[in-house]
């Protein structure tokens, strides 16, 4: 596995401005319904324990990237950028949920991230033509070029 290079993609200094007011977690819909870590704790852990601790945590993937935290952050910390950087790093280390792996594999195989048989039936029912075929080759190339192959075999 490659070494962690989070701070190359995200300026660590931005995190120092966090004063733990918890406006982000108070606004977090993922934390409402699931045991997500939440932006406040993510930032605090990155600062106090190092990001190693965070990227190994599965709960990192519970964020639904709605960006409300970033909207309401009084210190304008780019939280969503931080999460993307952390998730990229987590994925490279193998910390990636099975359902996500499945979705990517499906995308590589069919060109779509979901199964569409039923959709075609419904379309036929309404007299609509079936969905045009997805450009699988292009999508596979995109996946390889964006580095998905390093993370997920397909």
């Amino acid at each position, binding site marked *: 596995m490659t070494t962690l290079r989070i701070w190359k993609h995200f300026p660590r200094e931005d995190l120092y401005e966090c004063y733990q*007011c918890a406006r982000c977690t108070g606004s977090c819909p993922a934390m*409402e319904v699931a045991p997500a870590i939440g932006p406040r704790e993510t930032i605090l852990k990155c600062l106090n324990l190092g990001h190693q601790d965070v990227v190994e945590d599965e709960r990192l993937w519970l964020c639904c990237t709605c960006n409300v935290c970033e909207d*309401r952050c009084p210190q304008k910390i780019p939280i969503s950028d931080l999460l993307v950087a952390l998730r990229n790093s987590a994925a490279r280390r193998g910390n990636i949920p099975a359902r996500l792996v499945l979705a990517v594999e499906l995308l590589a195989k069919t060109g779509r991230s979901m199964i569409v048989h039923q959709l075609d039936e419904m379309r036929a029912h309404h007299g609509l033509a079936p969905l045009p075929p997805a450009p699988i080759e292009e999508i596979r190339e995109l996946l390889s070029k964006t580095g998905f192959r390093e993370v997920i075999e397909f």
Partner: protein
Amino acid sequence: MKEPESLTEKTSEHNDLRIGVYVCHCGKNIGGTVRCEEVAQFATALPGVMLAKDSLYTCSEPGQEQIKSDIREHRLNRVVVASCTPRLHEPTFRAACQSAGLNPYLLEMANIREHCSWVHLHEKDAATEKAKELVAMAVSRVARLMPQFEVTVPVARKSLVIGGGIAGIQAALDMADAGYKVYLVEKAGSIGGRMAQIDKTFPTMDCSICILAPKMSEVGRHPNIELLTLSQVQEISGHIGNFRVKVFKRARYVTDECTACGECIDACPQLVPDEFEAGLSIRRAIHIPFAQAVPSKYHIDMHHCLNNQGIVACDRCFQACQKKCINFADRDQVLEFEVGTIVVATGVDVYDPTPLTELGYGKFPNVITTLEFERLINAGGPSGGELIRPSDRKRPRKVAFLQCIGSRSKRASPYCSNVCCMNTIKDALLIREHWPETEIYVFYIDIRAFGKGFEDLFQRARREGVNFIRGVPGEIIEDINTGDLRLLGENTLLGSHYRYTMDMVVLSVGIQPRKDSASLQRMLNLATDTDGFYMEAHPKLRPVDTTSGGVFLAGAAEGPKDIKDSVTQASAAASRANILMSKGEVTIPAITARIDRDKCTGCGLCARVCPYHAIEGGKELGYYRVVEAACQGCGVCVPECRFGAIDQTHFTDDQIVSQIDRVLANNPHDKILCFACNWCSYAGADFAGVSRMQYPPNVRIIRTMCSGRVSPAWIDRAFAGGIGAVLVSGCHPSDCHYNNANRETARRIERFWKRMERAGINKDRLRLAWVSAAEGAQFAKVISEMHEALARTPADKVHKEADKLREFLSKKSSSQ
């Protein structure tokens, strides 16, 4: 300026120079590194030098006596003291000269301690050579110095206080009690300001209006105070000691006979939201701001009166008034008067939390601000002091306070508003006191209880059962049926989520500079900090002065402050103003700029760069002139003049060029010429000396008052003369002691770099560095870097570039 003619004649009479040079050993401080006898010996041979001596401690009594007796005995007409920094002992030696009958401006100091012996501790030869050159530079400058006479301007014993809040009231009373006439200008219909709106004060829980009202009525009846309410300052011109002020006074429409009986209010048909009650209740068009108002007189808000079209459509108040005090013919007027000093006490605005949509202020009726809350629980407020919530006027059982709303935030104000924590704790205790069954929750990030008695109050609140929860809610949701509010957030100490249902939420809003603070800033030429508050002249040592002479700051206009601090600062500002007024005159150092009327073409470029608007005149007049009382002596105007019409007294082009020429006389290609401003960079170099930071000895420092004085022509001369490198250094941007005059420095250097490029000269040889008085290490670092770069440049390249520049300059002058 009254220039005694006999004296000017006397100096021109013995035009032959008789310079005395005194080289100080300063114990071992200088003598341990520099061979002082050798330096004195060297100085004897310099042109114009009559005698040169070295002494152990020149600043000591015998050292000074020596100078005095030599002046008398040998009729010395110039003195050079080579010792420590002029920032330390220039006043000492000037006084010595003066007592021996020599004009104090005929003294020059060569700084061979901070700038030489202390920074070249281990290079005795090089340090001695440098000291010789520093003395030679001082000798060539002193030969060109002229006697100067300091001007005194009278200070009018009258003051203007802008703003009638607690700070303005305190400052006005202090000055009036000292016997000076005070004009107190207030925008609103009554003095009192924010303090009048507040219910209780922290940490002592005094009733706010009860302690304020006596002060207000004292202002109202004080024989030395002229109170101008409904008034705004429109124009201020002039300078320290003599400001001309124009005040726009809005019509009151009620005569002074008004007894505030209140018969007129019931008659008035016009309803208007009451700004004093933070919009929580209504008032009439004819009104008095609050019961204790001073002056205790009604006035008509003509904007909302039915007669605002200039015709009398409604005269109900007139009919109701038994004393017939209503005068619809009253007109706005402009008052003009002169004052000697000004105290700015304009106060603050309160943050409007509407943009923070997630909190629902303005949308949910039960979300209110602290100022609204103050009015709500005030016995004189709209609810008569009953704690009720706006939606159903029932008593709330659960009240939440949210801290840091609009403070410490990049979405609003980045600074801490200073008063909100304690204000919330005070409010929580007030609720506890009167309605003990109420549950109170304070959602905070940090509680800042830093002042005297603050921590006690905080502890008391905790003991009384106020719940402090760390973590501000991210969102407030209203129950539309009940008006209750649901707060979603995280308790960061427990690391768990909370949902609280509250009856009422109070947003602890921060304070902000006045929205219209820029107009006064322009009128008085004040500086503002990055947050928009007026800036003090020095954050530690001149906290109530401004960069404009005779103008002082009081209260929260300078930065968020509680009542105690506002009063303290107001008294300080009044005392500073009293010093000027009691003396009755102010002395201005003879370093002001002067314009030669014969050379001036009236282009006005100098007036444009003057940071004090001290240059007046115009095209019609044909010339510009410097108002000496307003000129602070930065000299930034001098390089701006293309016709050589301006020069700065005691820092003339001729004097400084003589220093440059002296540097160029020996091996200039090895040397770094440094121009340092008196306040920051020269002091920074001094600090490097005091800290014994070692740097290469090939730098020669020339002092100007501001880096803005540094003329591009000097840099031209230095490079054409083959200098190795030039450093221009000044205060950090926005730190400038002359109201950001160093912006001009940056602009001129940028332009010079472009010119160097055009002339084909390596522009790295000219460096601009901002060095503060505390950055001795930075100064040493810059010099070391420049020295390294210079060491890599061969001497013949320097000479070649000098030739190139000379060619470029001659081409330029011939083409003109």
